């Protein structure tokens, strides 16, 4: 990725109950539509890492404290879960909203995208 523009994390929140109830065909179709938006972002040189998370049942939480507490599952019990995220380069919040809007229209689901500007980004070299 190039330029001094702001990096945004676009966090995908959705009901895990519903997404886990998708058939393979429904899931493939959703991923194909999102893939089209991702290719466009990549062509513009704005797309950073994209990640889909395993279900929250695979999550472990370490609570801060003198003696950190380990808990099975995600930190919060909410109706919608963090299912994945994108890192995208955006000139402005407006452009970030526009990008998330493209993803939202491509998504076959309800739920929400949360836009969080990145304070620090280290690409790392995993998988190279």
């Amino acid at each position: 990725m190039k330029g001094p523009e702001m990096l945004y994390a676009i966090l995908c929140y959705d009901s895990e109950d519903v997404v886990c109830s998708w058939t393979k065909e429904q899931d493939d179709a959703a991923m194909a539509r999102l893939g089209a938006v991702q290719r466009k972002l990549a062509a513009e040189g704005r797309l950073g890492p994209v990640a889909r998370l395993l279900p929250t049942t695979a999550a472990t939480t370490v609570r801060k404290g003198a003696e950190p507490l380990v808990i099975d599952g995600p930190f919060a019990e909410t109706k919608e879960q963090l299912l994945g995220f994108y890192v995208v380069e955006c000139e402005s919040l407006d452009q970030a909203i526009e990008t998330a809007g493209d993803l939202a229209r491509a998504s076959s689901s309800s739920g929400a995208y949360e836009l969080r500007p990145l304070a620090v980004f280290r690409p790392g070299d995993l998988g190279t």
Partner: protein
Amino acid sequence: MTDLAWIDAALTAARPQAIGALLRYFRDLDAAEEAFQEACLRALGNWPRNGPPRDPAAWLILVGRNAAIDQVRHRARQQPLPPDELISDLEDTEAAMAERLDGSHYRDDILRLLFVCCHPALPATQQIALALRIVSGLPVRRIARAFLVGESAMEQRITRAKARIAGADVPFEAPGPVERAERLAAVSAMIYLVFNEGYSAAAGDTSRRAPLCDEAIRLARLLLRLFPAEPEILGLTALLLLQHSRAPARFDASGAVVLLEDQDRALWNREMIAEGLALIDKAMRHRRSGPYQVQAAIAALHARARRPEETDWAQIDLLYATLERLQPSPVVTLNRAVAVAKTRGPEAALALVEPLEPRLSGYFHFFGVKGALLMQLGRADDARCALDRAIALAGSAAEAAHIRQHLDRLVPDTDP
């Protein structure tokens, strides 16, 4: 955006919770199912117009309950049903309902529903059929297809199961800790049965029965979301995911069985393996091992080996020994013998296998393993005899074909 695919998935996802709550309310499976059907019909009319409700399950429970009550009133006093438009006007009630559902009842409702389906008064086949019908909402036609019976026969089987449940003493009160543990064990066993029903399918039938495996995984995940820190449920879910991850590699193009060590590991489903490994790692941290966790740990060792030669057979041998202690069974010992053959050779394995014969004399895999061990020891005649017995006991054409391949290897090259 509320497209039909989303509504379809939302109805499926909300089904166990909604039917569970309606069952608590009506204390009758048929009434709960009818109320849910009615609520689904109204959702299909309402949601595309008004957008999805904040909490689909709460909406379905409330609308289902009201519709059923209206129907009773309708029959009693011949009053017309309220127009559908009014049903959608539930925002406040729905929110209040959702608050209440969040807390105490949610877990117990679903657990009770699952428990009712695996009630000990029902034979295993009826348990599976009832769970697939009531909890998963699979059409009777599809369940019948999976069990190779006619639709009306399956309809009868489900009706009989429901009648037995109605006559049985089903506890509707919230279970205490001891009962909850018992119910969890019964429900886990039922989910495992559903999976095995799909997994043991003959090769030509994978597409017909694989949906049972997917459904069992969905039920296990549901149970795990309710009890996220229960090691045996972590283990069960991990086990099903790790087993099912190999599904694309288990049969070749002609439908013949491909043994674990001959499978193309590139075909294994990496995402399922990642999830299964994450879950079994979490379970082990609890240090309360149980049969599902041990089996999942064995499956995990196979999944972690990139090539068959990298399989940690010594560790698998130890895990089977643990399983023998937790859940003694000749089948477990037979499986352990396979690991022993790899670590200590066919002779040691055969010594473990032979005493099992009286108890496994009707078991296909027993003679398959015994035949293979005898082959390795160069005892061709004994091997042929064992493999012939295996073919006679094969449950499917694919199993028989697999054994025949072994037999072919015993035939001297000079034969035509």
